[in-house]
């Protein structure tokens, strides 16, 4: 009996002591944190919209990251484990999920996301907790501007907008209309840069109408009826693929014949599924075309993709997601896998890294300078129209 009491008293004091030690000494905490890494796996957070309005885009990007993980599964002899988190295409959810990846899963680097609004929602969190994030296809300049911890694998909207404005002008458009998704930072930003670039080319007043709609809207008949009365030569309508597809469908139903132009978000199968034959002939910018793949890494990527998803061709979103993984991998090879601040420095120093979309060098903002391809939809399939290099635009 006495013995039992003694044992329990001993245990209790031992627990108390260990608690005090745990609170007092930072060393023990650090040792605990290191444990999962020592156990073998390096955790990389994947931060994408896998449900909700942007799910189709998120899914394509997840394919790219998973494929990259399959081809490059190890770093310094340790396995890389993807911690996949769904931000549900929702700004509030995006902030929560980013915090969870950092605090609970203790990832040292985050890949993602599709959707600039979602990336911006997580911006302060990655900045404050000093964990670097590499955006896959969030093209709004504000994502990386003033945020040392957000980088990206894609080109940015001032470039993308200019590319599309040049294309419209080259095709003979004198007056254009813009339809933007006002609740979407990506759409509003891209529309603004398009307008600036087009007005430079075709003169002030060449943008005859700017119409707005909200994410999730299904009915665009009123905006389109107004727009039809202005009779534009082309319509620039960047936005989420579902809304854009419905918008184009309704425009054709109302008898609007002008060609539609858009951004990189349209390169998802859902855009074609929802828009069916009405989206044939649209033009949009993308980061990658499988027929123009130049680098050895791109060939590797295409081969693996063809094996994994039989008969399908990867688009820009998948290629960019793949690239974001390569950027993180390259940085961790240089800086190790434990210190997120050092990883950030290595990412910022990324130079001439061979990726699927050419050689990637990140500038002071954390943005790469990349070429764009212009694509169209032909009989329900994406096809290549033109390639635009950043140098081409400066020459003009």
């Amino acid at each position, binding site marked *: 009996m006495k013995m039992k009491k003694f044992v329990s008293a001993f245990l209790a004091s031992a627990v108390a002591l260990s608690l005090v030690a745990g609170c007092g000494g930072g060393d023990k905490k650090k040792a605990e944190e290191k444990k999962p890494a020592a156990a073998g796996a390096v955790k990389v957070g994947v931060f994408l919209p896998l449900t909700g309005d942007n799910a189709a885009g998120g899914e394509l990007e997840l394919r790219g990251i998973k494929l990259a993980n399959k081809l490059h599964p190890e770093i310094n002899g340790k396995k890389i484990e993807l911690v996949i988190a769904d931000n549900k295409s929702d700004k509030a959810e995006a902030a929560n999920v980013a915090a969870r990846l950092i605090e609970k899963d203790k990832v040292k680097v985050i890949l993602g996301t599709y959707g600039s609004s979602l990336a911006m929602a997580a911006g302060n969190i990655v900045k404050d907790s000093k964990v670097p994030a590499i955006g896959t296809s969030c093209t709004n300049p504000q994502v990386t501007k003033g945020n040392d911890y957000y980088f990206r694998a894609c080109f940015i909207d001032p470039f993308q907008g200019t590319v599309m404005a040049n294309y419209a002008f080259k095709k003979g458009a004198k007056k254009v209309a813009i339809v933007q998704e006002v609740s979407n930072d990506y759409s509003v930003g891209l529309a603004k840069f398009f307008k600036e670039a087009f007005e430079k080319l075709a003169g002030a007043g060449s943008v005859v109408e700017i119409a707005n709609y909200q994410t*999730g809207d299904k*009915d665009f008949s009123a905006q389109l*009826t107004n727009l039809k009365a202005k009779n534009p030569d082309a319509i620039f309508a960047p936005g989420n693929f*579902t809304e854009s597809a419905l918008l184009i469908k309704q425009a054709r139903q109302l*008898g609007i014949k002008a060609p539609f132009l858009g951004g990189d978000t349209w390169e998802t199968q859902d855009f074609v599924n*929802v828009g069916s034959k009405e989206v044939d002939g649209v033009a949009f910018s993308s980061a990658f075309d499988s027929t123009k793949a130049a680098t050895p890494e791109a060939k590797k990527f295409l081969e693996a993709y063809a094996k994994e998803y039989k008969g399908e061709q990867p688009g820009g979103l998948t290629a960019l997601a793949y690239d974001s993984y390569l950027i993180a991998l390259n940085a961790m090879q240089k800086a190790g896998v434990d210190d997120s601040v050092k990883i950030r420095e290595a990412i910022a120093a990324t130079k001439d890294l061979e990726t699927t979309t050419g050689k990637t060098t990140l500038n002071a903002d954390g943005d790469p300078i990349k070429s764009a391809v212009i694509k169209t939809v032909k009989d329900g399939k994406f096809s290549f129209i033109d390639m635009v290099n950043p140098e081409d635009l400066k020459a003009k």
Partner: protein
Amino acid sequence: MELFQAITNMTAVSFAQHMVNGISLGSLYALIAIGYTMVYGILLMINFAHADIVMMACYFALFGITTFHIPWYLTFILTIAATALLGVIIERSAYRPLRDAPKNSVLISAIGASFLLENLANYLFSGRPLHFPDIPFLSSMIDLNGIQVQAICLFIPVVTLACLFLLLHIVNHTKTGMAMRAVSKDYEIARVMGVNIDNIISITFAIGSALAAIGAIMWGIRYPGITPYLGVMPGLKCFIAAVVGGIGNIKGAVIGGFILGLGEILIVAFFPQFSGYRDAFAFIMLLLILFYKPTGLLGEKMTEKV
């Protein structure tokens, strides 16, 4: 001044086009609003799951045509039947066990049923949008002197009004309708007088859901991107339409639906700069009605029963 300018700038064709767009949107709202108002009239509860019943009906119709290759007209009939059944099942499982519980419990149960349906659809059908198949003739466009009208838009108001008259006939001139009105007036007394309350409530849900299915099919043809959350925003607006018209009043719901649909389109038509705020129109309507005529346009003053 700006309004004047907008009107003078608008051609007759544009204006007619706006009216057509508005009336077809309003009719859809009206049809769904009837479901809200009927349930409220009888149970004094807001059936939050109604919007998701609309969504489920869209999926039923879509899968009937694309996966099971049932001819579209047969699919529509089956969809209406299946949706009515779904409405009854939800009533039996989520609302009936709470018949004697406080009203708030039923309301919370309704929110639960709504989330359950949304997440079930998300799980079963994936969150990605599916394309509602094109229906011969109904999906095609008709050119009326420069006004482009989708054939379905000509049918929507006709179907809505036909449903309204049929429903008014059932409620006012049949025995079941009389029982419904009795339950709505005072359900304790109706029970004492020998009305089978549970049956009447089931019938109410079946009718409300069947109308939701009709609305859903036409919604699918008009706006063919089908997602698990497609009911949320229209559901809110139709609920507002029901409140604006006077909740509990069937004619009021239809009037409310038309006001909302036309209002939304015309606001964008005359004030294009506000087109991003068109959703706000419905909510401003709701606030105004609650401030100045809380019982709605056709609602009657009603003293809370104890």
